[in-house]
């Protein structure tokens, strides 16, 4: 970290003491945070190698032919359909539950914010395998018989990501002032939420959606132990029939999900730029365009 190119170089690099490595920062030239300095290249290249080589190896194993035949396999459509349905239901419940809650906590119960953060982080660390053991024990029979029990519990799993993006989004603009202004102009709660808060929160809601969808499309543990064939479960089951096609399917899923998220993010950012909101940053929307441009 000491090698981070920084403002300290004003003093001239000759004064650097303590033998701290200064990376490849050219001597006598001020390092800028903007530039692609060598240490950053190094990190990005190492990360790129670590993340891309396994993908490449898998593509080579599967062979290009397998990618085309994935969609024709039995169970592909039904399992993908189930996963997409679960993703949609989970997202809707998550937003309907969490947007009003996050707004309310910010406005009325700011003291609860720490507590909320603590509670909403729990599902990341509580093992899903423990949660599903308990859930199958306590869930009422009519829910146990449907795959939609999974959607209900996925809402809990998505909570850490959803709440954090909404929280970051709410911090990025002056919610209190806007709401007070709206109220003083005679706006009721409903219209304030609909016409003031939601438009400002759009990017944060988009982030929450993106993260929730990614989670549901990739979740395996609970679905497999609940014995429903969602897409990730189908991939594993199908692996026993045909290895290469199963690998191709999982690569395809990875790539399509990523592309989907990228499209959502780009669209959201474009929309936000028009309305003056923040950049979709998935987790934090804190860095907004400072507003001086307009």
């Amino acid at each position: 970290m000491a090698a981070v190119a920084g403002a300290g170089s004003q003093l001239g690099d000759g004064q650097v003491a303590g033998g701290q490595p200064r990376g490849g920062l050219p001597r006598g030239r001020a390092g800028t945070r903007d530039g692609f300095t060598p240490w950053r290249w190094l990190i990005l290249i190492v990360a790129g190698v670590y993340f891309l080589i396994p993908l490449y190896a898998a593509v080579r194993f599967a062979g290009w032919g397998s990618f085309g035949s994935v969609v024709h396999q039995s169970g592909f459509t039904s399992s993908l359909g189930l996963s997409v349905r679960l993703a949609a239901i989970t997202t809707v419940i998550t937003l309907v539950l969490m947007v009003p809650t996050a707004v309310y906590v910010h406005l009325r119960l700011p003291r609860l914010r720490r507590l909320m953060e603590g509670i909403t982080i729990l599902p990341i660390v509580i093992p899903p395998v423990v949660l599903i053991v308990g859930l199958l024990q306590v869930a009422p029979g009519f829910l146990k018989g449907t795959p939609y029990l999974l959607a209900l519990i996925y809402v809990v799993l998505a909570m850490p990501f959803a709440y954090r993006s909404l929280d970051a989004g709410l911090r990025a603009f002056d919610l209190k002032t806007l709401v007070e202004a709206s109220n003083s102009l005679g706006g009721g709660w409903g219209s304030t939420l609909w016409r003031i808060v939601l438009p400002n929160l759009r990017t944060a809601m988009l982030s929450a959606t993106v993260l929730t969808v990614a989670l549901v499309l990739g979740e395996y543990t609970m679905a497999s132990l609940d014995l429903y064939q969602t897409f990730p479960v189908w991939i594993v089951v199908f692996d026993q029939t045909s290895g290469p096609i199963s690998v191709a399917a999982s690569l395809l899923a990875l790539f399509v999900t990523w592309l989907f998220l990228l499209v959502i993010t780009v669209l959201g950012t474009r929309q936000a730029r028009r309305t003056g909101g923040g950049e979709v940053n998935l987790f934090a929307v804190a860095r907004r365009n400072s507003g001086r441009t307009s």
Partner: protein
Amino acid sequence: MDELVTAEAPGFPSDPGARPGVSAPEPPSRAAGALRSARRALGVVPFGVYMALGLGAPLIAVVVGAFQSPNGGGFTLSNVKTATSGVYLHGFSQSIVLSVIASVLPGILGLLLAYAIWSARRGAVLRRVAITASAVFANFGGVPLAFLFIATLGSSGLATKWLNDLGFNLYGHGFSLYTLSGVAVVYMYFQIPLMVLVILPALEGLRPAWREAAANMGARTWQYWRHVGGPVLLPSFLGCVLLLFGSSLSAYATAEAMTSGTIPLTSIQIGSFLNGNVLAGQQNVGKALGLGLVVIIAVAMILYVILQRRAARWLQ
């Protein structure tokens, strides 16, 4: 709970002479305050109920089940005793060792990567690609992930072959994908992206003004990190590492695909109870194992909350 304390009683004028009619303002105002804060709390009731049903109830079922005898349902400690001995105790220790490796290492690497992405001010495209990719990879796992690494670092994998051509025999140097360290390498594939996702908000908290102020006072880069950036980031960093620890402890799909019996891990052992591979009289040992994981996580969580508090104080 804080609310009862913080909700101020509605403002009675503190001049008693002006309002002789109000002889005892205390009781009614306190009651009104309590009522008001109770009404205020109504707004979080749906969330609270959902979490209680979706998170609380299953956890309670596991905890209660851990102390129930399978036949009759009376109180017993035998589940817990079984769960903390023999192969299960070994499973706990292996799980903890793996989780420590697979949280500290990706924590550091993820922080570096997140910083590289975050500080690339002109790299809006890079940021977008990297962050969406992080969201996808953080949810990647199971058989597909295991396969990716078997094709790469398995004994006849691609990278193994490349290294061999370069004159380095990976497996000759004691590496194997099916040992704890091998599994840790695989875990990093979703742990590093998770770290990037959770540490980014903390990086957003590093105000550029601090850096400029430090520079104006003559601080060098390493001094800035030693005295400003580091202390600010440290609590969140540790909190995020604890999060990774929990995530790695919970990992099931990848562990199932990678280890299949070679390394005993607690989450797999719990799963096998759910799949019905149970000895008679041990039906509830799985729940005791679940309780064990929850206890380990709880200890980590307590640390996490303490650390988050400190981070918040710094960043305010």
